[in-house]
């Protein structure tokens, strides 16, 4: 996962890109005949210094390689701290990425 974070004033803006095919049940059915082959990100979390700042449960309707943007208040966060983001998909695969706050 690619993560970019920027501190501006007292707000941190984060932009993240997850590389994932995000196949829906319909797409999987068309391709393999089995809708259970669908695989998509079901959950994304972001933490800074061990504190959760972003958390989302998602369905198959996020785009392919989804881009996510969010903001949070920079309380107890300074430049150089790392935003750690992790996604989990339907098959249980997981991947994480880090981005330094600039």
């Amino acid at each position, binding site marked *: 996962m690619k993560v970019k974070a920027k501190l501006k004033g007292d707000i941190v803006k984060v932009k993240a890109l997850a590389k994932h095919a995000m196949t829906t049940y319909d797409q999987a059915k068309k391709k393999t005949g089995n809708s259970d082959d669908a695989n998509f990100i079901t959950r994304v979390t972001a933490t800074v210094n061990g504190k959760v700042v972003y958390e989302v449960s998602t369905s198959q309707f996020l785009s392919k390689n989804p881009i996510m*943007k969010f903001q949070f*208040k920079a309380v107890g966060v300074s430049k150089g701290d790392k935003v750690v983001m992790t996604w989990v998909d339907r098959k249980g695969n997981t991947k994480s990425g880090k981005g330094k706050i600039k």
Partner: protein
Amino acid sequence: MQRRKFLSLSGLAAVAAMAPASVNAEDFRKSKPTVWTAHTVDDAITAMYGTTAATESGVTLTMPDVASNGGAVPVNVKSDIDAKSVAIFQNANPEAAIAAFTVHENSIINYDLKIKLKSDGTPITVTAIVEGKDGKLYVGKKTLTVALGGCEG
């Protein structure tokens, strides 16, 4: 006697270890599985919050009026409401739910996502629900069309 003491102690330790560490986060896919299989927006909202009664104010949902590519339609949800959670639904795809955010202490409700929308030429309504800390629901809606085949015109 000593053995008994040891056993009771280890029993206590096991219980302590099993207690979950501060459950602040919620996995909506596990806690509310019916939300993700509901076919209509109303069903999904009811599955998520138990009601569909919502005030239409305080939530801004920004999307293009005409999306050229149904494979990646940008969505932005903004709100100043002191909220517990935010959820996004739509009425074009086979299932209604798209995403459910948990709002944390320092979170700002200003979420951008890219979503897939099935395009059959008819207008699509995307609904964003914000669950306030006061227990009320607030809703923001946006109607748009998706151009077929990924080309405009």
